[in-house]
């Protein structure tokens, strides 16, 4: 028996370029669906009860000894706790080196004239400020880019490559603690991370104990 959409306790479409903020409790399953393919989904997680504890890209990389995120990856916090575990991934690879676009980084990467363009950091900041006035840019560390492909070569080259995702591909994770999920459905128009065409995503949440045949035991990376 597969996870059924009708059993989901949350099932939302997030339009291109929009933020999404929501809680996922320990044991619950979060699925993010790349509805039309090649859409970067910039994502951060916070400990729901203490947002000073939050997703850490470098702790996640270091813990698994591997750059890319996929099934089995434990998403670690800045205190090295496992916040969520990726339990299913029909895309195959997700980035956590590319960070989020911002007005300021757009001036560096593309042109001073691109400063006005909508960015993930604007989404993050606005969503955080409506949730808790005390949360600011200080609370934005390097994030995950679900469905984004940033291959690193053996000689240390790094490029934003064409996506390896496709319509309907999804990533599914189980929360190991109560988390606040902060998403920016990336509005970047200047590089191939969204195939130059940002598109909607779907966010689904299931209760703890939902039947997941594909779930498998994961172990801490060596």
């Amino acid at each position, binding site marked *: 028996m597969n996870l059924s959409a009708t059993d989901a306790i949350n099932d939302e479409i997030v339009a291109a370029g929009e933020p999404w903020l929501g809680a996922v409790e320990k044991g619950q399953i979060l699925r993010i669906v790349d509805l039309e393919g090649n859409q970067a989904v910039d994502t951060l997680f916070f400990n729901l009860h203490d947002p000073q504890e939050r997703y850490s890209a470098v702790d996640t990389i270091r813990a698994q*000894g591997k750059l890319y995120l996929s099934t089995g990856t434990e998403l670690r916090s800045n205190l090295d706790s496992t916040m969520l575990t990726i339990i299913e991934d029909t895309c195959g690879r997700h980035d956590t*080196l590319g960070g989020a676009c911002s007005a300021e980084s757009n001036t560096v*990467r593309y042109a001073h004239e691109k400063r006005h363009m909508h960015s993930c950091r604007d989404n993050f900041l606005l969503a955080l400020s409506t949730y808790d006035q005390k949360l600011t840019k200080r609370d934005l560390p390097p994030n995950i880019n679900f469905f984004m492909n940033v291959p690193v070569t053996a000689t240390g080259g790094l490029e934003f490559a064409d996506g390896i995702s496709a319509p309907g591909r999804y990533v599914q994770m189980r929360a190991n603690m109560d988390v606040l999920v902060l998403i920016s459905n990336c509005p970047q128009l200047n590089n191939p991370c969204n195939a130059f065409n940002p598109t909607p995503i779907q966010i689904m949440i299931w209760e703890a104990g939902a039947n997941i045949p594909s779930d498998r035991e994961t172990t801490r990376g060596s």
Partner: protein
Amino acid sequence: MTSSSSTELWNVRVEAGEHWSGILRRGTMLRITALQARANVAALMYNFELLSERYNMPDTLKAQHTAFLTSGCVCYSDMGRILCSITADTCGWHDTVCGLSDAAMVAEKHGPSRFQEQRNAAHKNGRDSMLNELGKYGLGKRDLVANINFFSRITADEDGGLHFDPEHCRAGAFVDLRFEMHTLLVLATCPHPLDPDTSYRPRPVSLSATRAAQVAPDDPCRMRCPENARGFQNTERAFLT
């Protein structure tokens, strides 16, 4: 700022396993020298005039299309400005994607260690060392972001698997940082978190500050890529008087 001068302004020895912080003003050059082979210097940087502006690993890597740092690279803040430029590097590769060690990791790898028995030889770890220094400036966990690990080289295979290079850093290797903003620099000389050495062997480094020459129009860091030219423009605009 006058022309380049090798007159040393100050120097300090950062002991093995020590943590250190200091203010490096715009126009200051800092040479970090590995006093022994296989040194590692975890480093974070903040705009000393606005501490919420800090080193940003993703912005640094994607602007320069690289997964590591070496001479010609600059270290970007999260506001599109350049905290420092890497003007010389005898090492060739500095990691910025592997983070810090922590207490649990060090205890698991090297066994228990306390001040009571070992005095100042007690094991240190990267995260606690950084938090120690950050606390002196009113900063803390919220300000702990992806750091640089100077002198450490970690390569990735096709699947992203990471490999630590134990031969990378030789004794005497150095890296020169030219500060483009007034910067709070926070350091720790704890071993790299992916260093497989089962013995706890941190290594000391020396810091030597001099005055930097004015950044030339054809400066190699500025000329590395169009992105850096714009990064220097953003930075210079913040210092116009």
